[in-house]
């Protein structure tokens, strides 16, 4: 079986685009977990909400209104979740947290059904990014290139904030050892809250960005949850490097698996997950060495 250069370029771009969507989702989840030891299984539901907010806002004021406001709206949902539920559950242990956030998935799912109905919504890419462009021998949709560039830009911004700024050092200190960080006068609770909201906003951003590529359905949050969890388990909990590496691995294995070995595609990523868990159970780049 031979493939020309165009095939490889096309599939590489597809893989990158999937990787970037997963990165936007997994970075929030992984840093929240690293910092708060809190598994928010409802993170995928926030992605679905981002898509719905985006679609509704776009219907009023065009794509860009949705693009900029949907993450803000989802961060607002995050504030409600944090103050209503998560703050109270901080000390209640992983089992209770998993059960509550698992239940939250269904609560949020039905809320989206009540507000937006069961029918799939569509969100069109903005005129500016509509159409295709010739790129390394292939005609590639501009919107998908935009998703790749956006993901890389967010990665760059987060790498700068986490790696080079005072607040980034405080977040890393909190992930390393939250008790000691508190003893040094770092308000770890407030840091949690800010990180949680930013994580929610990024999940919302992923949702609105994904909407023109997929159709917006209530189940989209459930469908993305497992890939996101696989990404952070492969990448290692709590680290930016782990989130980007895990996303890339997932994106490339999934995309190339589907075209090169379609019979194996559905199990390939799970086999890889199992291999990582056997060889390096903490993931490839965990925050705690």
């Amino acid at each position, binding site marked *: 079986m031979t493939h020309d250069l165009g095939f490889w370029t096309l599939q590489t771009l597809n893989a990158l685009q999937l990787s970037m969507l997963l990165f936007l989702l997994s970075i929030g989840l992984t840093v929240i977990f690293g910092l708060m030891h809190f598994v928010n299984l409802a993170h995928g539901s926030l992605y679905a909400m981002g898509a719905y907010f985006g679609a509704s806002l776009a219907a009023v004021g065009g794509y860009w209104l949705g693009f900029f406001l949907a993450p803000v709206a989802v961060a607002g949902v995050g504030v409600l979740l944090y103050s209503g539920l998560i703050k109270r559950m901080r000390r209640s242990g992983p089992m209770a947290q998993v059960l509550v956030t698992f239940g939250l998935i269904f609560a949020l799912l039905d809320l989206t059904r009540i507000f937006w109905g069961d029918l799939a919504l569509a969100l069109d890419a903005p005129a500016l990014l509509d159409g295709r462009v010739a790129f390394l021998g292939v005609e590639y949709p501009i919107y998908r290139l935009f998703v790749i560039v956006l993901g890389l830009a967010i990665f760059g911004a987060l790498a700068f904030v986490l790696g080079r700024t005072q607040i980034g050092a405080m977040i890393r200190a909190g992930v390393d050892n939250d*008790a*000691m960080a508190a003893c040094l006068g770092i308000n770890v609770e407030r840091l949690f809250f800010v990180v949680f909201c930013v994580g929610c906003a990024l999940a919302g951003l992923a949702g609105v960005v994904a909407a023109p590529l997929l159709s917006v359905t209530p189940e989209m949050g459930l469908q993305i949850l497992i890939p996101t969890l696989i990404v952070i388990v492969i990448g290692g909990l709590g680290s930016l490097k782990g989130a980007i590496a895990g996303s890339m691995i997932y994106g490339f294995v999934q995309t190339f698996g589907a075209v090169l070995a379609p019979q194996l595609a559905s199990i390939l990523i799970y086999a890889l997950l199992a291999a990582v868990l056997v060889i390096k159970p903490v993931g490839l780049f965990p925050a705690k*060495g």
Partner: protein
Amino acid sequence: MLEVTGVASGYGETQVLHGLSLEAWAGRVLAILGRNGAGKSTTLKTIMGLLPLKSGQIMFDGKPIPARPFDVAKSGIAYVPETRDIFPSLSVRENLEITERRFGGDTPDWTLERVLDLFPRLGERMNNGGTQLSGGEQQMLAIARALLMNPRLLILDEPTEGLAPIIVKMIHDKLQELKSDGLSMIIVEQNFGFATSLADDVVVVGKGQVVWTGSAEEIKCDEHAQHTWLGV
């Protein structure tokens, strides 16, 4: 300065402190001595808010001490834990800066330059990761980081544990310098000579209570107390 009265505390269901009382005075060094498992570290963790205060009270400068570690730190108490707890993901510089920038104020006593004068060794390792340091360097960094909080009370848990004699001597001299500067300190130690040469006051803890109180000079002469409570 710090008054601990009838404190009960412990880990989960296991109670370690049973009505422990002690007092640390401003401008003086208090050593807390005792055998392993007597409750020395538990006392410090309870003061810092790392373990819940089940009963009794802790007053700092005449006010009840806050419950959360973050507020305890803000009230002016700096803590150097037994395990040093240097952040592995941060460079030496970042380990220092995360406290310096928030506690500095306008005319801080302790600045980055001043702690590097105290521990020149750290200056050579500013860009190293926190975990690339030797045990002695980690201890220096933990003390330097605590000083940058410009604390009114410095609490050290076993500052000499696992260190080579020459480093122990160096840490001793540096703490002596801080003492001459008038910094109030509480030191938990297994090393009897180290502790009694630095301290003004001594309390001995056994089975979660204070069993002996006096001055450093007194305990050096009291062979009975040393034998009964410290196994010296």
